[in-house]
């Protein structure tokens, strides 16, 4: 063997040494496809490629094809890459490609889906990963020249739309509206809006309620005093100012309804004078017994309501 031949062998070995790792980086590309025949216009074809790479290499996501029309008859509809991780120093990917064909053949015809060129990187080096092309047979939908006279198709009536169940929603809506109305009325009552503005406060009703129970259970001096005070406050509220015994004529002038109970009111004021300013609760209670005081308060309540 001459020197040249030996030199050539050496070069080949060196080239093999450098290229061997590059070959080993791509372990396999397996394409799994459905049946290769019997497709008609509009069918979707799902291809799956399983790619195995040596560990430091990853598929470059930038090299993946974008869903787009590939040809006048072929669309790439969907591209999905699944990474199954590293197993025994090998990284496994599954690449799903969904195509849709719009070819309208006049007779059965073989078509080809072109291959996909991907690349894998490990940081600095880049290797090509080629998913192979695949071919299949497409068939026409109908005969080229009709042999039987065509019949007009009878159109079936449209399907009636399904009613959406709304009864529960309506019930809830009505309920919430009712609640809103009640809340608004409560607010209006509290604020005295609209017709509620004419609502009369009933100080004598409150006073009658406040004094009836204590006087009936324990008619002692403190509760008697409190009862008189409650009635005085009711007079004050009704008149809008403090009402003393000497103001009674003016009070009756302003509130003629109370004139019906004038005698009782005068008796009440006389008794309260004795209690508060004469220090004579005993005498006042003799003159106006607690139970009669309760009766007077009820009478005043009735007068306030517009009764007799």
């Amino acid at each position, binding site marked *: 063997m001459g020197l040249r031949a030996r030199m050539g062998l050496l070069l080949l070995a060196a080239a093999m040494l450098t290229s061997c790792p590059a070959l080993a980086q791509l372990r396999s590309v397996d394409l799994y496809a459905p049946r290769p025949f019997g497709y008609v216009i509009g069918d979707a074809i799902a291809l799956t490629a399983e790619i195995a790479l040596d560990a430091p290499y990853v598929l470059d996501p930038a090299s993946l094809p974008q869903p787009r029309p590939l040809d006048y008859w072929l669309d790439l509809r969907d591209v999905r890459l699944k990474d199954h991780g590293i197993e025994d120093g090998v990284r496994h990917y599954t690449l799903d490609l969904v195509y849709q064909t719009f070819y309208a053949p006049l007779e059965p015809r073989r078509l080809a889906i072109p291959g996909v060129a991907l690349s894998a990187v490990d940081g600095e080096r880049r290797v090509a990963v080629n998913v192979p092309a695949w071919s299949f047979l497409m068939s026409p939908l109908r005969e080229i020249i009709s042999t039987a006279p065509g019949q007009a198709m009878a159109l079936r009536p449209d399907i009636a739309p399904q009613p959406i169940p709304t009864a529960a929603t309506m019930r809830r809506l009505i309920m919430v509206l009712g609640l809103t109305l009640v809340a608004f009325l409560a607010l209006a009552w509290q604020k005295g809006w609209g017709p509620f503005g004419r609502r009369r406060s009933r100080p004598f009703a409150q006073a009658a309620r406040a004094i009836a129970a204590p006087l009936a259970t324990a008619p002692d001096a403190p509760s008697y005093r409190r009862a008189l*005070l409650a009635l*005085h*406050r009711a007079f*004050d509220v009704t008149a*809008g*100012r*403090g009402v*003393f*015994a*000497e*103001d009674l004529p003016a009070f009756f002038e302003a509130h003629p309804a109370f004139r019906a109970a004038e005698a009782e009111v005068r008796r009440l004021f006389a008794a309260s*004078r004795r209690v*508060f*300013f*004469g*220090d004579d609760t005993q005498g006042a209670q003799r003159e106006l017994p607690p139970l009669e005081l309760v009766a007077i308060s009820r009478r005043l309540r009735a007068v306030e309501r517009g009764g007799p």
Partner: protein
Amino acid sequence: MRIVRDTDSVLSDWRGHALRFEGEIGKVVLGQERVIRLLAIATFARGHVLLEGDVGVGKTTLLRALARAIGGAFERIEGTIDLMPTDLVYHAHLGEDGRPRIDPGPLLRQGEQLSVFFFNEINRARPQVHSLLLRLMAERSVSAFNREYHFPHVQVFADRNRVEREETFELPAAARDRFLMEVQVGMPMETEARRSLVFDPRFHNVDTLLMEVESGVIDPEALETVARAIQSGVRSSPALEAYTLALWEAIRNPATLGIEIEGVDMARLVQGGASPRGMSYLVRAARVRAWLEGRDMVVPEDLRAVFPEVMAHRIFIDPVYELRRERIVGELIAGVFARVPAP
């Protein structure tokens, strides 16, 4: 028990006298029932009174009638700008023998039995005179001829013309505080009274008119005793005392009660005043009023009836509001009585 009944019967006798006293004055002064009632209260509370009002509404007539009805010694003096304290105390003149003589002046002329001293147009007199008057009102005594003169029964009535402000001297607050009441004398309201005053010849000559007043209805010597009996005989209950203190507090801090007067900043309106002396005068006057109304206990109405006259001039308000004083203080007092809850 016996003493109590005696006091009661004495008081009720005197109440009759007091009502007759009011009636006698009312015969010649028409349409001033409220003022007459206040003067009667002052008389039985042994307090001094300052009358204020327009010209010619009958202030002087009223006081002359009152002096005549009380009986006892009466003196009057006109306030002028050159009146000096000595003019009140001494009377300097030439005697019949041609020698200068100094005799007791108007204040001393009636001796210590003087019961009504009537000072006309008090705001025309100088502050020196006011201070003499202050002592007479507070201590019922003056110094003259190197000794003290005591006037145990004296009651000072003064009047003041509120229209004229020129050549007048405003009374110092201390002097005003010594008056039990400042009574506003207005025009009579009733048309009938006005017509009589203008057209009835009876009212044209004041001197003959005053002769109609029965003289000496009440005994000035006994007034002091009766006044004391009234003060001890008319009760004030704890409830009323609490009410009075609440009124006092409300007058001093009207903003806390939510009293509002149009165009007035309530937080700064009341600067002070409503002195403890004023409040004690108020209760004194309220007791007399209760007695005149035939009650043996003070009720809030009594306080309300005398409150404006006794207290209004003791409330010191922000100078900004001084010119509208009458209306503002009137509303303040009305507001306090409307808001403070009576027991």
